[in-house]
C-alpha cells in the first residue's frame, strides 16, 4: 500500500476544522496529517492538487446496485466503478433487492461483496417491514446489530397508518432511524407522472403532490407521537417543503433529502413520452422544481442524493406507463452538484456538506470529513469542460437523461481507504 501526499489542494471540508489550501498526508488508509508531515511516509505518491478542490469522499443516501437478484440490471462491481468516478466513497444501499434485505445474513452478504470489490463503503438500510410487505415488522434490533444504519420501506406501501405508527414506535425504542419515502398510495393511485398539465395533455395517470405532502404531514405527526428518528427521503414538491420547514421551525428534528435530478427537471421533460424521465416520485410542476432549487441552500433539505437506479435497456423500452421508473446517474452526482453551485443555487461549502457531513450525520456514521486520523476517503476535483457522451457511461444502466450535457468540473481522482480507486484520464 502506497502512502499519498496531496499537495496544495483547496480543501473544502464543511464538517471539519481545516479548509483552504493545504497538503494532506495519507498513510495506511488514514489521514495522518494536514500540512505537517509528522510521520515518515513510505515512498509516497505525490499528487499535485494545485487549483483543485479536495473534498471528503461523497456519501450517497440512496443507491440501487441491483445485487443480489437483479444482476442483469447491474452489479455491485459495475456500479461501484460508476460511484467512485463521481467521488462517492460511501453508498447507502436500499433493501429492495431480490430477496429483500430483511435478515442479518442479507446485510452480511452485501457487505461482503462490497468488501471484496473494495472500491467504496456500503451502509445498508434494511427493510422496515418483513419482505417490504408493509404489514409485519422486520427484526429491527437483529438488523441493527448486523450493521443496518436505518430502516426503510422504500416506495413500497405501508398497509395503514397503524402499521407505520407501530414500526416507528418499535424503531424508536431500539434507537433506529426510519428512512421514510413519503407517498400515500391511495392518492398516488398507480399514477406514473405528476398530476398536472403534462399528465392531462398526454393522458397519463397522475400522482398529485398531495400524495406526498399528506404522507409527509402524517409521518411528522407520527414522529411526534412516537419519538422516532425520522428522515424523509426524496422530497419532490413545494407543499412537502413547507410542512418540513414548519416542523423544523418548531424544533422537530426531522431531516430530508432530495434526488439531484429533481433540481434539474420538471414535468415538462416528459412531454414526448420520454421514458428516461420516468422517475418516482415523478418530476413535478415547474414551480415545485424552482421551490426545491431555491431552498436547497437552506437546511430544510439536509442532503442531496443520486437515487441511482440503473436499468437494462428493456426496462425503458415500452410505452411510458409500462417502463420502469428511475435514473442511472451516480457518476454525475458531483458534476451535477458543481453545476448547482455554478447556477448559484448554493455555495460550494454548502453543496459539499449536502453530500458529505450532512448525510454522515443522518446515518450516524463517522465519514464525510477530512481530519487527522479519519479514514482517507476523499475526492479531487478539477476545472475542466467536458460533455457526457452516451458511450462513455460507466454504469451498467444507460438510462441517463443527461447525455449531451456539458459540465465544467471533473473528478480527477477518488481515494478510498488511502488508495486511488479512480483516476480521470
Amino acid at each position, binding site marked *: 500500500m502506497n502512502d499519498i501526499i496531496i499537495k496544495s489542494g483547496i480543501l473544502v471540508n464543511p464538517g471539519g476544522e481545516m479548509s483552504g489550501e493545504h497538503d494532506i498526508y495519507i498513510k495506511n488508509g488514514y489521514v495522518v496529517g494536514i500540512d505537517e508531515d509528522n510521520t515518515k511516509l513510505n515512498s509516497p505518491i505525490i499528487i499535485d492538487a494545485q487549483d483543485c478542490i479536495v473534498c471528503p469522499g461523497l456519501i450517497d443516501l440512496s443507491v440501487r446496485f441491483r445485487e443480489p437478484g437483479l444482476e442483469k440490471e447491474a452489479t455491485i462491481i459495475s456500479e461501484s466503478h460508476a460511484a467512485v468516478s463521481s467521488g462517492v466513497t460511501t453508498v447507502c444501499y436500499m433493501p429492495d433487492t431480490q430477496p429483500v434485505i430483511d435478515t442479518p445474513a442479507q446485510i452480511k452478504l452485501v457487505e461482503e461483496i462490497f468488501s471484496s470489490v473494495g472500491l467504496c463503503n456500503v451502509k445498508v438500510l434494511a427493510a422496515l417491514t418483513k419482505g417490504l410487505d408493509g404489514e409485519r415488522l422486520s427484526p429491527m434490533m437483529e438488523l441493527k446489530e448486523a450493521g443496518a444504519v436505518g430502516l426503510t420501506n422504500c416506495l413500497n406501501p405501508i398497509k395503514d397508518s397503524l402499521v407505520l405508527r407501530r414500526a416507528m414506535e418499535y424503531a424508536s425504542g431500539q434507537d433506529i432511524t426510519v428512512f421514510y419515502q413519503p407517498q400515500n398510495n391511495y392518492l398516488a393511485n398507480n399514477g406514473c407522472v405528476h*398530476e*398536472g*398539465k403534462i*399528465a*392531462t*395533455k*398526454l*393522458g*397519463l*395517470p*397522475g400522482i*398529485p403532490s398531495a400524495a406526498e405532502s399528506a404522507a409527509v404531514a402524517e409521518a411528522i405527526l407520527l414522529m411526534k407521537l412516537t419519538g422516532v428518528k425520522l428522515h424523509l427521503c426524496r422530497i419532490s414538491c413545494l407543499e412537502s417543503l413547507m410542512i418540513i420547514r414548519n416542523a423544523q421551525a418548531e424544533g422537530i428534528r426531522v431531516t430530508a433529502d432530495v434526488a439531484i435530478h429533481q433540481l*434539474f*427537471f*420538471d414535468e*415538462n*421533460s416528459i*412531454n*414526448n*413520452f420520454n421514458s428516461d424521465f420516468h422517475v418516482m416520485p415523478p418530476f413535478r410542476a*415547474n414551480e415545485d422544481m424552482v421551490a426545491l432549487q431555491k431552498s436547497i441552500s437552506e437546511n430544510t433539505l439536509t442532503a442531496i442524493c443520486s437515487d441511482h437506479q440503473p436499468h437494462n435497456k*428493456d426496462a425503458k*423500452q*415500452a*410505452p*411510458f*406507463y*409500462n417502463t420502469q421508473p428511475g435514473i442511472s446517474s451516480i457518476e454525475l452526482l458531483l458534476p451535477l452538484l458543481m453545476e448547482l453551485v455554478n447556477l448559484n443555487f448554493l455555495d460550494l461549502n454548502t453543496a459539499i456538506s449536502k453530500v458529505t457531513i450532512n448525510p454522515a450525520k443522518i446515518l450516524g456514521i463517522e465519514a464525510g470529513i477530512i481530519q487527522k486520523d479519519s479514514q482517507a476517503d476523499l475526492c479531487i476535483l478539477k476545472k475542466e469542460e467536458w460533455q457526457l457522451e452516451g458511450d462513455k457511461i460507466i454504469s451498467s444502466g444507460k438510462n441517463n437523461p443527461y447525455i449531451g450535457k456539458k459540465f465544467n468540473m471533473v473528478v480527477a481522482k477518488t481515494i478510498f481507504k488511502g488508495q486511488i480507486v479512480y483516476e480521470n484520464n
Partner: protein
Amino acid sequence: MNEKDDMGIKNKELNQQNIVSQQHLRHFLDIEYLPKSLILDILDLAESFAGVSGQPVKKVPLLRGKTIVNLFFESSTRTRTTFELAAKRLSADILNINLDYSATKKGETLLDTLRNLQAMHCDMFIVRHPSSGAAEFISKNVLQNISVINAGDGRHAHPTQAMLDIFTIRKYFSDFTKIKVAIVGDILHSRVARSLMHALRILEVPDVRVIAPKTLLPIGIEDMGATSYVNMDEGIKNCNVVIMLRLQNERMNSSFIPNEHEYYNLYGFTPRRLDLLAKNGIVMHPGPVNRGVEISSEVADGDRSVILQQVSNGIAVRMAILSLSMQP
C-alpha cells in the same frame, strides 16, 4: 431547462415525425401538431372518398398490393371494422390481430411482437393500445418503410376519431370559427376528448367547452384551450355541437360518481336538454352508446343526432388518412 425552448424543439420534432410533406404523412399519431391546412386537406380528400361507398363497386385501387395490419391490444368493434373497410375499399390486404395482451401474457414484449410482424413484410400498422404513448413508441421502433396509424392509445389520443368528428361537424357547419362545441362526460379518461380539443383548437373554434363532474375533469384542462363546466345546462347552452362521451361502468366502482341515476340526471343528454342547444345544434357520440346513462334513446335516435353518420364518415376519413400515410 427552458420550457419554451423545449416545446419549440418538440414541435419541430413531432412535425417531422407526422409529416413528410403537406401531401404525405409519415405516421398518423396525434393531431396536436398538425397544421390547419393539412387537416382541411384530409377532410377534402375524405369528401372525395365518401362517394366510393355509395358506388356499386366500392373499391379504388390506391393501395393495391399493400399489406395493412390492424394491431389491436384492446378490444374494439367500430374502430377496427371501419379501418378494415377503409383498407379494403382502398384495395389493400388487411390482417386483423387482436392481441388483448395475449402475446404479452406469454412473455413476449411489445417490441418483439412488432419485430415479428415486420418480418412478415407489412406496410402499415394500425395500432390500438391501452397505454398512452404506445403509438408513438411503436412509430419510433418500426422500420423506415412502415407507417403507424394511432387507433387509440390509452387516454392520450384517438386522432382518426377526432378527424371523423370534425368531418361530421363540417357537414353541418362549414365555418369552424363561428361555432360553439361542448364535450360532455368522462374527460379524464377520454382520448377522444383530448384529440378533439386539439383539432378544434387548430381549426380555430372560438368556444370549446368540457363538461363533467369535477372527478372526471383532469387538472389543467383549460391549458388545452377549453372552458370547463360542472353544470351541464350552463355548459351546453347555445352550443351548435354537443359531443357526448361514453361513461364506463367501472367509474362508478372507483368513486368517480355516486351512481348512474345521479349521473344521468346531471350529465345525461335528456330530451329536455335539446332545447338548450342552438336551434341548428347537433348531438354526437363516438360510441358505443350507453343508453340511459349518458344519453336517452329519444335523443340518440332523434333528428338532432348524427351518431350513425359519424360511423359512416369514419370509413371515408380513415380511407383518406390511410392513403396519405402509406409510404410509396
